[in-house]
């Protein structure tokens, strides 16, 4: 484990050096992600000029909702920074046979494939997310209890773990199929469902959708549970959600690792 941490440190340092070599580009990339994010925030502000709440009686009024959005920003920025750049390269590696080079290295292939690139510019959104969270929480009528702050980081970690497991599953699918650009699009569209409070999925179509996105692909636990812990009163149901999220994160990581190993075992070198 310490060896892997040291190697990851080396990777991260190399990426940071590379990013800071092309400083203007780095700043531009930060501004890019900040641009998209501020546009979304503007949209939410607009929505709240028409309604006091997202869904009647859900408790997602303006400040709690922005705490929700901030939580999503923090989790997504971590995933974008740590895993996505490497995962995006994988498709090309499978096609070009560069994957072979990874497999012969005396390191865990999953570690190497999912963490060898770090995109520091993606962290800009996370920093804004933390600021936004601070702003939103400071305007709550009742500040979150200490216990909420204690489990919040753990739940953020679980959210990151669930998303990571999904990236790994898609990576496994890439290795099996050789090429699947639309599966990565699928990742984008799937995570799209985690962007809003789970309560909005109700009714004859929303109910089943919510159930699938909670119990089958636990995408609705990613942002919802930590945001709920920080922004809403800690009632009994929330505790169940917390326990469920921790279990789901563990299960997701274990299952995705198993699937990934299996697909590697089936991998037959592509070219070269």
């Amino acid at each position, binding site marked *: 484990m310490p060896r892997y941490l040291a190697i990851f440190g080396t990777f991260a340092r190399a990426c940071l050096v590379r990013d800071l070599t092309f400083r203007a580009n780095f700043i531009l990339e930060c501004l890019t992600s900040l641009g998209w994010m501020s546009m979304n925030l*503007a949209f939410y502000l607009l*929505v709240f000029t028409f309604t006091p709440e*997202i869904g009647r*009686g859900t408790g997602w009024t303006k400040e709690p909702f922005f705490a929700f959005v901030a939580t999503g920003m923090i989790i997504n920025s971590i995933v974008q920074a740590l895993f996505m750049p490497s995962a995006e390269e994988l498709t090309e590696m499978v096609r070009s046979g560069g994957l072979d080079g990874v497999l012969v290295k005396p390191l865990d292939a999953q570690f190497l494939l999912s963490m060898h690139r770090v995109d520091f510019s993606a962290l800009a959104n996370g920093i804004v997310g933390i600021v936004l969270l601070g702003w939103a929480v400071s305007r709550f009528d009742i500040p979150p209890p200490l216990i909420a702050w204690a489990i919040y980081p753990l739940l953020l970690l679980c959210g990151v773990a669930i998303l990571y497991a999904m990236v790994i599953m898609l990576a496994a699918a890439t290795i099996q199929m050789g090429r699947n650009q639309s599966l990565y*699009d699928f990742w984008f*569209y799937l995570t799209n*469902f985690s962007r*809003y409070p789970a309560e*909005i999925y109700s009714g004859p179509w929303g109910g089943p959708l919510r159930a699938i996105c909670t119990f089958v692909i636990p995408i609705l636990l990613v942002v919802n549970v930590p945001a709920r812990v920080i922004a809403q009163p800690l009632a009994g149901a929330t505790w169940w959600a917390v326990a469920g999220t921790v279990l789901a994160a563990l299960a997701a990581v274990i299952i995705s690792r198993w699937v990934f190993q299996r697909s590697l075992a089936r991998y037959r070198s592509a070219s070269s």
Partner: protein
Amino acid sequence: MNAVVDPPAAAPKLAGLRIWWTMLAISIEERLVYRGDFALGTLMRFLPIVTQVFLWTAVFSATSRGDIAGYDRNDIVAYYLLTMLSRAFSSMPGLATGIARSIRDGSIKKFLVQPVNYVSFLLASRVAHKLVYYAVAAAPFAAVFFLCRSFFPPLPEASTVVAFLVSLLLSFLLGFFLETTLGMLGFWFLEVSSLVFGYMLVQYLLSGHMFPIDMLAGIPSGIPGTSLADVVAWLPFQYTAYFPAAVWLGKVEGAELTRLLLVEAAWVVVMFFACRIAWKRGTRRYSGFGG
């Protein structure tokens, strides 16, 4: 090519025909494989609308008003679906960056010596690109619109349908000339990806892709007496997503509809000339770098 395909001299002519037929069948099959992927991709592009529909349903459930800026919940769903359609006409993926790339790597040089107008060439290839896209995307689009038919108001009058089609065609031309002009800025800046990004951002927010522009009507712009919606109305972006949808939903009618169609046409003309000027000036200062 001939050397490979030509049947041996002894073989009857029929064999050559059969080989040709096989090649045709293979290429059609290849297209079909690609088409499935493509159609699936088109379908998935509707997924974000699903979340959007649930979001607005939740918003309507929490507010006592029956409509927001003149849109009830069904209108909003119909609106998002219709903007998908207008975007299918006006969005030009890769156009501006492609032009800038050909300036940078020098492949644009051949258009300077050939008796082919570069912009006409781009327009022709874009039309072809769009036609193939519509042929493939028609089925998923039709399926989604059919499933969601209950969200739409009753079919508008024929004149409205005509105006809608005209607005779509104009939005294709407007999108084309906007992006081409943007790409031509590559003569000055070489790398336009950040400009394109800025354009996409402004476009996404102000074209009505994200929400109906009417929702900005109550928000002051900082200029006394004008709302943000007024400011957006002065810009060309709303014609690339909002306007055709608004026409279909009957949000713009009568004299106002005619006026806005003329304004849209005027924007097309303005961008057409902007594009020509950019090409003239740009090629004059172009120094032919790259391969």
